[in-house]
C-alpha cells in the first residue's frame, strides 16, 4: 500500500467514548482540528482532559467513536487495520514518556524495529538505524541495552526509532515527563531542530515551559478544545 502524503489532516466532530462495563466515559467531544504540514503543536490540558486520547486518534492508534478523520481529503474511518498499521509505520513516529524500548534488544536493534515491519533489508536497516543514532547524538551507544542508558539517552533512542522510517509527523506524549529539566531542554531542542527540518511535531504536555517551544498551542478541557493559540514567533 503506497500512500502519497499530502499536507493536511482534518478532524471533524470527533467524539471518543470509552466503554468499560456498563460505564460509558466520554473523553472527547466534537473535536474539530486542522493540522498543516510542518506545524509544531503542543496539546495542553489537565490530566483527564483527553489530550493523550486526541494524540492517539491523530496517530491512527485509536479509532474515534464518531466523527470523520480526513487525510488528504480521504476519510480514514473505513481504513482496514492493516492499512492503519502501514500509515503508522511510514508516516508517524511515536515518542513516549515511558520510552517503551524493547528491554533485551540493544539501542541499534530498537531503532531498527520499525524498518523490520517496513520489510527493509538487514543491511539497510543497520545503516539507517546507525545514522539515526548519530543524529540524536548516540552514535557510540549502539550496542548498549536500554538499562545501560540514562533517561535522556533512552528518550534519544526512542526519538531515533521514531525518525528512522522518515515519517512526516512526530507524535510525542509527555516526552520530557520522566526527565530532569536540563535533559528536557536538550530533548526539546532536538524537537525544534526536527521541526525546522520540516517534520510536523505534535506533543502532548501539561508543562508551560515545554509548550512554549511550540508555534501553536491547543488547550483541552473535559474533552473540548477551549483555546487554539498561535505564537507569532
Amino acid at each position, binding site marked *: 500500500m503506497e500512500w502519497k502524503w499530502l499536507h493536511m489532516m482534518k478532524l471533524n466532530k470527533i467524539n471518543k467514548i470509552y466503554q468499560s462495563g456498563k460505564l460509558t466515559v466520554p473523553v472527547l467531544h466534537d473535536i474539530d482540528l486542522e493540522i498543516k504540514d510542518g506545524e509544531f503543536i503542543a496539546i495542553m490540558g489537565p490530566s483527564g482532559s483527553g489530550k493523550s486520547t486526541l494524540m492517539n486518534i491523530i496517530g491512527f492508534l485509536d479509532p474515534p467513536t464518531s466523527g470523520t478523520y480526513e487525510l488528504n481529503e480521504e476519510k480514514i474511518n473505513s481504513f482496514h487495520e492493516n492499512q492503519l*498499521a502501514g500509515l503508522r509505520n511510514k508516516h508517524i513516529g*511515536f515518542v513516549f514518556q515511558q520510552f517503551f524500548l524493547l528491554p533485551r534488544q540493544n539501542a541499534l536493534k530498537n531503532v531498527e524495529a*520499525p524498518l523490520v515491519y517496513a520489510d527493509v533489508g538487514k543491511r539497510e536497516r543497520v545503516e539507517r538505524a546507525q545514522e539515526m543514532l548519530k543524529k540524536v547524538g548516540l552514535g557510540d551507544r549502539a550496542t548498549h541495552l536500554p538499562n545501560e542508558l540514562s533517561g535522556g539517552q533512552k528518550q534519544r533512542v526512542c526519538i531515533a526509532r521514531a525518525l528512522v522510517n522518515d515519517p512526516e509527523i512526530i507524535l510525542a506524549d509527555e516526552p520530557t515527563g520522566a526527565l530532569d529539566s536540563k535533559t528536557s531542554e536538550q530533548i526539546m531542542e532536538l524537537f525544534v531542530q526536527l521541526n525546522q527540518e520540516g517534520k510536523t511535531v505534535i506533543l502532548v504536555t501539561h508543562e508551560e515551559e515545554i509548550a512554549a517551544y511550540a508555534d501553536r498551542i491547543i488547550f483541552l478541557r473535559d474533552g473540548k478544545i477551549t483555546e487554539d493559540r498561535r505564537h507569532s514567533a
Partner: protein
Amino acid sequence: MNILESFKIALSSIWNHKIRSILTMLGIIIGVCAVIIIVAIGTGAQTQLTDELFGDDKNVIELYYEPFPTDDGSEMMWVEPELTADDLAEIQQLPGVKVAMGINHGWGTLFHNEKQIELQIVGVGRDYFYGKNIEMVEGRPFTMQDNDNMNRVVMIDDFTRDKLFKEDEDIIGEIVEISGNPYKLVGVYKSTTPPEYRWGDDGEALMPRTLNGMMFGAAEIQQVQVLAASAETLTETADLAATRLSEIKNLEDGEYTYWDMSEYEEEFASFYKIVTLVIGSIAGISLLVGGIGVMNIMLVSVTERTREIGLRKAIGATRKRILFQFLIEAMTITLLGGLIGIGIAMLVTIIVSQFLPFTAVVSPIVVMIGASFSALIGIVFGILPANKASKLSPIDALRHE
C-alpha cells in the same frame, strides 16, 4: 514476512527464560523421547526376530511329514515316506519353486592334529549350492560327478577349520578322518551360522548326499527344503509343494506340511502393537500435557509482553506479524524440545542396545517425523496465545501496567 527475524527473536526470548523454557519443553522432550525409543527398540527387535526365524534364507521353507491323528487319539505306528531324487525333481518343476533341496543329516567326529571336533554332517546335492548362499573360503564345492560317483569328498566350515587346523596349513586335498573313515577334503566354506547365534562347539561338514546316504545307511532323502522365487510367495509355494509331495507319495495316513513362520511374525507384530499402543498413549498424553504447558506459558508471555506488543503495533506491526511472531516462538520451543528429546532418545538407544540381545535403531525417518510433529504441536497450541496477542489493541497494550 521475515521468518529468520522472527526466529531470532523467538530464540533470544527462549534464551532469556532458560529455566522456564526447559520446564515447558519437558513434556515434549519426554513424549518425543518415549516414542523414538520404543520405535527404535521395536524395529531392532523385529529385525532380530526375522533374522532369527529365517536367517539369511528368507525364502527357504522346510517340508516335513506329519501323520493324521487317529480317531481315538492313540499314538499310531507310522512310517515316514521315503523320498527320492525323482520326487525332488517333481517339486523342482512346480511354479514358484526356485530350487528344491534334499538334505540328509548325520553326526561324526573329525580327528586331526591330535584334536577332535564333533561335526554335523550335512548330505547335500548340487541343488544345495543353488539354494543356499554358500561362500567358499578355500578350495572348491562339490561337482555333479562327486554326487553321481559317490566320491569320498568332504567340505568343512571355517569354524571347524579354525578349531582344528593351523592357519598356514595347506589343507585342501588332504585326507581327513571322520569317525574312522578317510575322506578327501576339497573345500572350506564360510559357516552359515553367525557367531552370535552359535552355541556349543560343534562344527559342520558337507558331504555329497549320495555318499552321506551310504555312510549313514539311509538311501532316501530325509529333509526337503524349498527355495521360493520370492519371500512374498513363500507360503503359497510351500503349500503347493507340500500338497504335490503328498500326492506323489499317495499318502493316506498323513501329509506333508510346513512351518508357517509368518505366524510367529504375526504373533510378534500383535505383541509389538500392544506395546506400541501402551507407550504411544503415554507419549501422546505427555505430548498433550506438554502442548498445554506451552500454551500456558505462551499466554503468560503474551500478558508479560503486552506493552511490547502495543509498541510493535504502534510502530507498524500488523496483526498478522504479531500472530506470526508468537506462533514461531511457540513452535521454536516445541521444536527445540523435540530435538532435545531426539538427542536423548539416541543416547538412550545406544546405551540400551548394550543390554539388549539386539541393536535398537533410530531411523532418520522417525527423527524427521519426531521433529516435524513437535513443531506442529507448537503451532497447534500456539494459535490461541498468538491470536490473543495479535488482537490486543495498541492503546490498551501500551497503557497496560
